[in-house]
């Protein structure tokens, strides 16, 4: 059963849910100007779990993902309604600093977008602006561990000071993951991270997501059913700006509650 499909919840219930989930969106609505892109989405993100967001293109997956670290703030005429909490704290509360929020909720984008700087600088940039390290030794340490976590260390350890943009697409994407990991976020959001990659690079990134799960909470948007099935434990199905259903990935792919989910998974639309 979808735990939060019911919109009417007792305050007490909400409280316990906020405590047991890493992030929680309640009645999230998003408008781009006059156009509504999300309708009352209620979705919980569990700690140390990979949550996959699936659905036909244009259904609002990226929009919802961007709500989770307030990247929507950077889009003109985008309005977000409802409530989203991170460990019980409303992230749209005026007392919350988006800079700090984004340090806690990192993001990896659809197209690899390393800075046009060296590999080392790409990874060290986040820790530098957040003051996570002081000495050169500390920075070296962070760069190394982040690149190791992103499974890129062995490939680039001899050319840390060469351009990050000179890597292959798959390596660039893992560099972006290393860059996100370097600021020690709690949640990592990934928006179709493999859509620009070849199958081998995709396999590497998927493997990486698998490993990262033990330390981070991951939300991944994907248009590939197989990928969702391979990497995620929970899956949320979106359609036309609405959350159709959310459940264990196994359940969604074998026996979904909604016929729309069934149809989408069988490839009948999308």
């Amino acid at each position, binding site marked *: 059963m979808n735990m939060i499909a019911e919109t009417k919840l007792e305050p007490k219930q909400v409280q316990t849910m906020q405590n047991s989930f890493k992030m929680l969106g309640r009645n999230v609505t998003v408008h781009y100007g006059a156009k509504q892109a999300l309708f009352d989405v209620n979705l919980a993100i569990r700690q140390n779990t990979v949550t996959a967001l699936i659905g036909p293109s244009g259904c609002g997956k990226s929009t919802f993902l961007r709500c989770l670290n307030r990247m929507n703030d950077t889009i003109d005429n985008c309005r977000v309604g409802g409530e989203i909490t991170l460990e019980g704290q409303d992230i749209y509360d005026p007392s919350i600093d988006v800079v700090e*929020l*984004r340090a806690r909720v990192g993001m990896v984008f659809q*197209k690899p*977008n390393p*800075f046009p700087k060296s590999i080392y600088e790409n990874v060290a*940039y986040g820790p530098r602006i957040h003051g996570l390290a002081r000495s050169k030794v500390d920075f070296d340490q962070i760069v190394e561990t982040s690149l190791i976590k992103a499974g890129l260390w062995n490939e680039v350890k001899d050319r840390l000071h060469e351009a990050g943009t000179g890597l292959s697409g798959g390596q660039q994407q893992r560099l972006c993951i290393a860059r996100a990991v370097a*600021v020690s976020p709690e949640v990592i959001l990934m928006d179709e991270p493999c859509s620009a990659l070849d199958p081998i690079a995709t396999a590497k990134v998927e493997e990486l997501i698998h490993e990262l799960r033990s330390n981070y909470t991951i939300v991944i948007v994907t248009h590939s059913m197989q990928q969702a099935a391979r990497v995620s434990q929970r899956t949320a199905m979106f359609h036309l700006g609405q959350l159709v259903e959310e459940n264990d990935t196994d359940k969604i792919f074998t026996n979904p509650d909604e016929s729309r989910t069934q149809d989408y998974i069988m490839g009948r639309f999308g």
Partner: protein
Amino acid sequence: MSDAILTASVPAVRRDIGLKRRYAAERRFRLYGLAAITIGLVFLALLLTSVVRKGYTAFVQTEISLPVTFSEALVDPTNKRAEDPQILAKGKYDKVIREALAAQLGFDAKDLKSGKAADQLISPSARVELRDMVLADPSLVGKTIDVSLLAEGNIDSANKGQIDLSVPEARRKVKDQQLTWMQQLKDAGKLKFAFNTGLFVNGASSRPEAAGLGVAAIGSAVMMLIVLALSLPIGVAASIYLEEFAPKNKFTDLIEVNINNLAAVPSIVYGLLGLSVFVNFLGMPRSAAVVGGLVLTLMTLPTIIIATRASLKAVPPSIRSAALGLGASKMQMIFHHVLPLAMPGVLTGAIIGLAHALGETAPLLLIGMVAFVANYPVTPMDPSTALPVQIYMWANEAERAFVERTSGAIMVLLVFLILMNLGAVLLRRRFERRW
């Protein structure tokens, strides 16, 4: 069987996809491009050859070296230099020169007619030169030393072969007697060409041989520094604000339209603005490099703002999202990532604006920089001129020696421009090498 072979050997009818037409179009386009470039190059070559042909002689200057005797009777007849060294400034240095010439050329110094003609061999500025020498070192009085003196402008022109000697003597600037003397001096190795340092260090002068670009070059350099120091930071700050922070509404649209219009406003209008605001209203001095610099700054700002905004816009949005997604603040995003990537474009805009400002004459005329300034400005508030204004003033002079100087000055201005562009190219390379 045979049918099958037949059909196989008949080539399939291909649709005409217009390949020929397409290639012809491409060839035509290349030709147009080549023609355009050729025309441009031809005009550039014409311009350069005409300027260089007319102006290269300006870089050498005829000098006459003479043994000059600073006799006490002429320099200090009352013998008071011990009490008052300034008395030496009143010496009769023109007579000193005439005596030196008389001795060298072998005419009687008392003969007024020959003396006058001989005087015209040497630039009047030579008197000042000798006076300054004696003032600096009073022990020279009574001594004889070899001094190189500037030849007069017409003599210089004659020596460069620029005076038509077939014209009857009465209508010629250089008389036959003077020509004979020139030959005499030349044979004695006393009349020679020397590099024209005066062109670069002297200020304005009514005598072409003593006129130089020094004051104008300093004025231009000071103005360029002012323009760079003001318009680059102001322009970049304004662009960043408009592009990244300002809300997009009717009001900012209006500002944008106005900036684009300002870039097209004739420069003379900026001169009028400068005259009424800086000189008349704020009471700044006329002909000063500050005012010129401020006016040129106003003129350059729109160019820099337009170029900067365009290059800020061209920075890929993915870089912005990457920085913001990592938790960079907007300021950090702009100054760590966006601006460095936009820098080559900003520099291009700045250099185009600066090059324009360097060559601008009209607004400077209006704020009175078209003055006759012989002394170096000590502060930017002192009167000074600018290179293009100097060219304009020399171009209005009639003497032959000013014609070559005009072209020479144009060459100096072009070298200035080339150096500036070179600097910009080097800077841009450095920024672009950051991948």
